[in-house]
């Protein structure tokens, strides 16, 4: 019975599709893609520049904190008094950890991460803008 009905309703399928509808759809998608790509590229570029600018002072701050905290002095003990470091390695490790400026390092890593991610997305958006799916006849 289902086949009979399929045959009955098959007459409705003959509706003609307007000429150029496919091109219109692809053109509309193209416009939307490019708009999205441009917006994305702008946002990611601003983010990349901001994070790049932020990295320099953050990096200088990290270096300064390392030297102020005595981290490098503790670390240099490995080369000067290796035997003492080995025999008291637990105290040595905890002293190193205590002197490390974790907060500043975390900020630096976050800034680097944001820079790399925003560059990745900016590149993707750039590629999206460059590529054309609509090719008019």
């Amino acid at each position, binding site marked *: 019975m289902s086949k*009979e009905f399929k045959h009955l*309703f*098959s007459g*409705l399928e003959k509706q003609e599709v307007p000429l150029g*509808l*496919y091109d219109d759809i692809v053109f509309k998608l193209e416009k939307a893609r490019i708009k999205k790509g441009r917006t994305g590229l702008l946002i990611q570029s601003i983010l990349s520049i901001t994070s790049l600018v932020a990295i320099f002072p953050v990096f200088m701050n990290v270096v300064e904190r390392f030297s102020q905290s005595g981290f490098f002095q503790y670390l240099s003990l490995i080369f000067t008094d290796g035997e003492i470091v080995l025999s008291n390695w637990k105290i040595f490790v905890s002293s190193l950890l205590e002197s490390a400026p974790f907060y500043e390092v975390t900020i630096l890593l976050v800034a680097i991460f944001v820079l790399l991610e925003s560059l990745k997305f900016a590149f993707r958006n750039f590629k999206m803008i460059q*590529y054309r799916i609509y090719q008019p006849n």
Partner: protein
Amino acid sequence: MENENDIKLVSNYLNGEEDALKEIVQKYYKTIYRFLFNYIGGSPESADLTQEVFLKIWKKIKKYDKRHSFKTWIFTIARNTAIDFLRKKRNSVFSDFENVDGTNMLEENLSDDLPSASEVFSKIENAKKLKEELDRLPVIYKEVIMLKYQEEMDFGEISTVLKRPEETVKSQHRRALIMLRKNIDSSKFF
């Protein structure tokens, strides 16, 4: 198999192959256009709505769940777009026959014998007439008939597109055919 191909196209597009989007459009734009055309009663806005549907597909493609059929997913989008359009035009009659409890008064008064296709067909002169009769059906029945016979979906797929239980869809299908016959019978006198 068809769904596997669709999933591959979607994956290719999401992996940066922009041309896969064109293939998706190429594969479905005619069926979507025809579906919308019949759904909104042959309105000239069908072409614009088709463009809108593909724009929505593009925007939502990352959210597509590959465990489900791509075809039912895009038809769900198409149907929702058509409903929004009809609502905006304020000529969508979804529940003219329903009371506050959701009981369909017309359904309640219908006999339950399912007409055969030949029985319906014998009273219909041509496809145009059939379309007119189909357009007279309430939207909830018309969409079941369209998805079943035009898009060749099974009841499970229709149930997914319409977000209704499969049993309800089967019942609505049966009632749609009964109603169609009733409409044809009554139209003979005018």
